């Protein structure tokens, strides 16, 4: 078996591998900037919460529509948006902080989802929902992922400045522009959309991994905001590529494989990245005069 067979063979030979690869690329395109902003806004765990929140909606879609992508995606998006809006409402109207209200709603949502799936489907279905299946990335799924990536990039282009300012200096945005809340809500909707786009290939729980891990890793390589977004998209795509190969050759589920590869990239970045990684901190300590 040559290197070519090892690296490109699976994609040349099988249509589902090609579709999965294109899907990963589109997911990484939207997920890069969204993940970067989540990291900068200190909302990394919020993304995780939203990914759990998608589950009952997807399960309802599954119960009523079977393994149909439009039904499950619509349900998932509706559940995710409901959790985002409800916890935003609780944060605004009560003294409870955003992280706590998010946690409360996503736990309710997760429990509901597991309950629905376990009473109405087999365990296999639950696994499929949680961890995704590469075989199910069909043309419909690809179109959905492509549409979401397009919407994400166009929307981000329109709200980029207030989004960045709300993250850097929320007090200033409140004083000069009263639409900070609107921007925040639109951004949460984008997070939900990207999670829903990813769950077919990666599963609800893993979709957030392709968003967060590359974004967290990029912090150790570049500084500037646009470079951060681009770097995390690139890292996301590379993780998708290697993860798919790993999953194909070793017969592993695709979602966890991709996310694990992204995780390895993250660990390497923390250790040896050129910006504020453990390596540079140690070097600095060694060379500092003290």
């Amino acid at each position: 078996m040559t290197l070519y067979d090892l690296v490109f063979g699976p994609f040349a030979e099988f249509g589902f591998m090609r579709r999965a690869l294109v899907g990963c690329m589109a997911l990484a395109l939207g997920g890069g900037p969204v993940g970067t902003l989540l990291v900068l806004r200190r909302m990394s765990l919020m993304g995780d919460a939203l990914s759990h929140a998608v589950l009952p909606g997807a399960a309802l879609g599954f119960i009523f529509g079977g393994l149909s992508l439009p039904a499950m995606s619509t349900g998932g998006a509706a559940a995710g948006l409901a959790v985002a809006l409800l916890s935003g409402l609780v944060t605004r109207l009560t003294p409870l902080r955003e992280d706590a209200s998010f946690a409360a709603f996503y736990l309710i949502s997760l429990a509901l989802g597991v309950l629905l799936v376990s009473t109405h489907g087999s365990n296999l279905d639950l696994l499929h929902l949680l961890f995704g299946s590469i075989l199910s990335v069909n043309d419909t799924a690809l179109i959905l992922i492509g549409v979401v990536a397009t919407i994400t990039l166009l929307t981000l282009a329109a709200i980029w400045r207030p989004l960045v300012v709300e993250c850097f200096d929320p007090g200033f945005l409140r004083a000069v522009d009263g639409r900070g809340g609107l921007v925040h809500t639109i951004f949460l909707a984008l997070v939900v959309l990207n999670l829903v786009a990813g769950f077919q290939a990666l599963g609800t729980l893993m979709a957030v991994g392709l968003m967060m891990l590359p974004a967290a890793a990029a912090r150790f390589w570049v500084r500037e905001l646009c470079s951060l977004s681009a770097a995390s998209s690139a890292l996301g795509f590379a993780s998708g590529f290697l993860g798919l190969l790993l999953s194909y050759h070793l017969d592993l589920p695709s979602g966890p494989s991709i996310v694990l590869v992204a995780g390895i990239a993250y660990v390497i970045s923390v250790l040896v990245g050129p910006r504020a990684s453990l390596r540079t901190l140690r070097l600095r300590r060694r060379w500092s005069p003290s």
Partner: protein
Amino acid sequence: MNGSPDRAVVLDNVTLAYDGNPAVRNLSGAFIRGSLTAIVGPNGSGKSTLMKGMAGLLRPAAGLIRSAGQVGGTIAYLPQHAEIERGFPISVLQTVLLGHWRRIGWTGGATRKLRERAQQALAAVGLEGFERRPVETLSAGQFQRVLFARLIAQDAGLILLDEPLAAVDWRTSEDLLRLIASWQQEGRTVAAVLHDLDQVRAYFPETLLLACEPVAWGPTRDVLMPRNLRRARRVAETWSGNAGHHWTDPESWATPALQRDHRVIENKSGPLWQDGVGSDRSVR
């Protein structure tokens, strides 16, 4: 009393509440256009709340605030302990350019002219050549200078500063105070919450002494009389007795009543009312 063109902000029997507790009560008066006013008072006397109210971020529980923003003018507001993410990957010039928000909004581009104005603003705060520096590399004093440059770029008719000198060194405070004074010369209306009464006496012609309710408002020399400062302290203590510990520095609770008149009330940013208490002694 609202249509008068020589008044930048008119307060008509204003009560402002924070978390349900009234923090400012029954305040009436006006900031004259082009005036430079210091707002002073003990901790928890409603100074920051008043600033939020004038900036339009807090609706009065009673009364009416008419400020420049509502009659076509513009307001620039620098909050206390700005909740700024100092590690955010943004450059000094980009931060100052945000001051042009009113002109560029969500999607407008920063033209060469706006860039030049931002650079001039940076030069005015003594940060020439810092344009491309990431803000995370600045000291606290330099960062405060950047925020002042952004205020300059905002080019507002009414400028509200909430403890703008709380975390900066002596030289930076002097530079920024001179800058504030120059804004008045340009015809802008400035109101600033301050703690250092020496700075107030040196730079601010007008003073509003606040202790939940207004104690005195007028020329600084008349307002900062020992009699008024004593009264402000007494009123603040009364309110703190009614409303709980958060109204004043907890230390003022622990002090025995006998020592109360000679006590120096302090807060994190340094001795408070020290010279007020000092002149108190000299009067006795």
